[in-house]
């Protein structure tokens, strides 16, 4: 059994690691659900029951408000419905004949329909009237009944122009009157569900969204550029900070400067300094230099590192003196330790996203796997240090040392708990 404070720390660290993993897994599962749903056949998102409610419902995001359907709109609607019925008949005829070229027969329809009322007649889509949309609100209301999956692709495949006229491309309204009339005749047609695989290239983003997104990108780019050329503001800020510092009494100042460096210490020492330095040293010793020049460089690097480490040690001694002298008030804060990163987060970091280009699934998977491996290694390193910090003193001080404890500690420290050394009791033959 391990002593209490040791156990607490170890369990706390491991639980934190486990929770972080668990949290990542949860978020990832959510994304996976979304992705899988996208790759299946798309189902309509509205409830299936047709709403018989008359009267237009307000559709606030639609930019083309038309309050009451005028007589002209209704007649146009009738014409459209008839046209679509005819299209369905023609299509039935064609599909009976065989996989004819549907396009020519349907194209005249596209040309004929006035731009105010739109029809989408992409070659593959069944000629269901569902997509006979009108800008004007049909009396059956905006919130149209859910249409069967086969007709859903219609409103995806609108051209951009038609989308603009609709406002929100996805909010295709259906003349339910026409709908219900036409539906029975269309049922015999083969339903084609929308899948991303087959028809993904026909999708288009809604105009309003695209506008907002490009505005967003533009603004972020502006923020980047203003940050880069920000010297006057930076000067004003520095002046203010100095004034504020000057207004504070000096004694606090001195200890704060030390304290500031102390704050950097965990970050630097635990990760940056020792690991980087160790890394370089490991490299330098492992590297077999091939010629004189490399040999010399190795030597210089090692000597330089040695000097740096000596400097750090000296600085550390100073800090220890300060810590001992000032009886520091240690304030527990609720904030998690800021783990430092191996990469140099540049001083001029930009805010707007940059494209990360990949060319194959393999590459993407390699990238993800490597990133996770590096994070895992980093965590393992941290845990290794914690374990060494806690367990080695125990093993050293416990006399007589129990073989079982040694074995357990060895497995934890040297293999991350994966392998165990074998311990044989060698009883002397009496």
């Amino acid at each position, binding site marked *: 059994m*391990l002593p209490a*404070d040791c156990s*607490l720390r170890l369990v706390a*660290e491991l639980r934190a690691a486990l929770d972080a*993993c668990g949290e990542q897994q949860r978020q990832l*599962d959510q994304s996976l659900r979304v*992705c899988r*749903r996208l*790759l299946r056949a798309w189902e309509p998102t509205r409830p299936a029951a047709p709403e018989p409610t008359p009267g237009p419902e307000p559709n606030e995001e639609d930019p083309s408000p038309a309050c009451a359907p005028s007589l002209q709109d209704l007649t146009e609607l009738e014409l459209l419905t008839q046209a679509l019925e005819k299209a369905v008949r023609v299509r039935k005829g064609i599909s009976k004949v065989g996989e004819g070229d549907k396009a020519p027969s349907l194209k005249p329809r596209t040309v004929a329909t006035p731009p105010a009322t739109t029809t989408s007649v992409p070659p593959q889509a069944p000629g269901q009237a569902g997509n006979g949309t009108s800008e004007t609100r049909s009396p059956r209301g905006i919130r149209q009944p859910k249409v069967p999956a086969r007709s859903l692709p219609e409103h995806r495949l609108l051209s951009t122009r038609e989308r603009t006229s609709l406002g929100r491309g996805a909010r295709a309204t259906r003349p339910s009157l026409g709908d219900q009339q036409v539906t029975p005749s269309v049922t015999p047609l083969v339903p084609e569900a929308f899948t991303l695989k087959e028809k993904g290239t026909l999708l288009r983003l*809604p105009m309003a*969204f*695209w506008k*907002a997104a490009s505005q*967003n990108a533009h603004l972020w780019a502006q*923020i980047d550029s203003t940050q880069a050329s920000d010297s006057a503001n930076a000067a*004003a*800020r520095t*002046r203010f900070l100095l004034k504020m510092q000057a207004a*504070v009494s000096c*004694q*606090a100042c001195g200890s704060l400067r030390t*304290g*500031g*460096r102390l704050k950097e*210490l965990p970050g630097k020492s635990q990760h940056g300094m020792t690991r980087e330095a160790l890394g370089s040293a490991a*490299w330098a010793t*492992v590297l077999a230099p091939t010629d004189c*020049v490399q*040999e010399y460089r190795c*030597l*210089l*690097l090692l000597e330089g*590192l*040695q000097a*740096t480490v000596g400097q750090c*040690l000296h600085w550390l001694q100073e800090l220890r003196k300060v*810590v001992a002298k000032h009886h*520091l008030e*240690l304030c527990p*804060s609720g904030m998690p330790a800021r783990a430092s990163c*191996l990469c140099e*987060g540049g001083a001029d*970091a930009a805010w707007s*996203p940059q494209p990360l*280009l*990949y060319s194959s699934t393999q590459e993407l*998977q390699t990238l993800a*796997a490597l*990133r*996770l491996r590096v*994070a895992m290694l980093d965590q393992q*390193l941290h845990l*290794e240090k914690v374990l060494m910090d806690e367990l080695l003193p125990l093993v050293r001080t416990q006399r*007589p*040392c129990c*073989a079982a*404890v*040694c074995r357990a*500690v060895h497995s934890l420290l040297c293999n991350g708990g994966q*392998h165990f050394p074998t311990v044989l009791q060698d009883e002397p033959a009496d």
Partner: protein
Amino acid sequence: MGRRRRPAGRAAGTGTGARALPEAIAALCRTLPAGPGPETFRRAKFDLPEAAPALWRLLSCVLSPRSEADTTGSLTREAQVRLVKSAMRSQGYPRPALFQLPEDGSQGSRELLLALSWLLARGPLIEQLLARTRVRLGDEMPVCECEDLACGRASPGLPTPSKDADSCVDVRHVQWLMGKLRFRWRSLISSHQEHCALLSKIHKYTQGCHSDRNLGHLSVAETELLRDPEGGQQLLQMLEFENVRLEAALEWRRLEQVFWQWMDTVLGASPPDSPNAGSQPTFLPSIPERVAGELELVSRELQALQKELQEAVEVRRASWEAQVRGQGPEWSAEMRASKEAVGQELAALWQAWEREGSLAQPHRPNRLVRSEAGAPPGQGLWATEAIGALRSKEACLEAVLCWLQGQSQQELAKLAGALPGVIWIPPHGR
């Protein structure tokens, strides 16, 4: 929102300043999350108590760690006060008056205003807040492990629960937790692989759809928007809201100077700090409670490192001197060049360490874009480069981990060797 014209009693400011200041403060309020009205700022200058609650709320929202940003709204006033105080302490805020404000959050609006300005002056606070709640339109994949690291560490300042007998754990429990962690990592990695495959498919199927030719294909968020228009509406609203905040941030940057002039007057108006700080505890940026232990650990590591470096240097020097004996005079030029190069490398390394102590800057976000391997990237990061960088990091970390494990193994082997009547067989491969 209150009067926009400043009272004539304000000391500083030019003619244009009198107009620009309200605009600047209004822009600041618009861009901050949970932003108070401009009236609050005016009241705070005169240290009126009505302004205090709003400022406490604002600061607690701004300072709360990333994962808890949503819950600060539900904190009680006292909890907000405590959070703000501890967070400011850990950031190294120089003025002691803030920490002496009463816990009920009824006073100190001027001090809070100064604290907010200090935060604004120190770093790109506005941009960081905006980046924290950024609407993510693309599929993002971080190329470094910073995000993962930040969550996986146990908070060093957690109040240690009472050490009762129940908190002692067996070392086998620790082994079990390690195994569980390993398993979770493995399933996380495989989930990520699946996620990458799905992303790649979605990108492939929607090639050519995006209105932005540089991107070429849709991301998951955009495809989801097309599949589910209602969810898309929400996304659009969030985008528009963010655009408003971004515009406010840009305006703030334009008018910032005036604000700093005004803050100088506020600083002047606040009472000077009492020079006697003897009775006050020297508060320092939050350090882990185990300061002495940390320093000890670091010092031990550095000393071990120095020993290792010394040995390596001796070996290298010997071999180099043997090699250099046969070299001619052209050597000296090469030697000088090598010296310079190594000097630069070491300086860069030192700078990187120094920079780690600075404020954590979030990395530039990446948006995944699938493109052909040979195409010119323009602006962007190739996955292959990121993979290369990650591989070298991985090698470095593995080397360090091996070294640490070797250290523990040596020590444990010594201890185990001292056990009487026991044969110690290390596991295979060690």
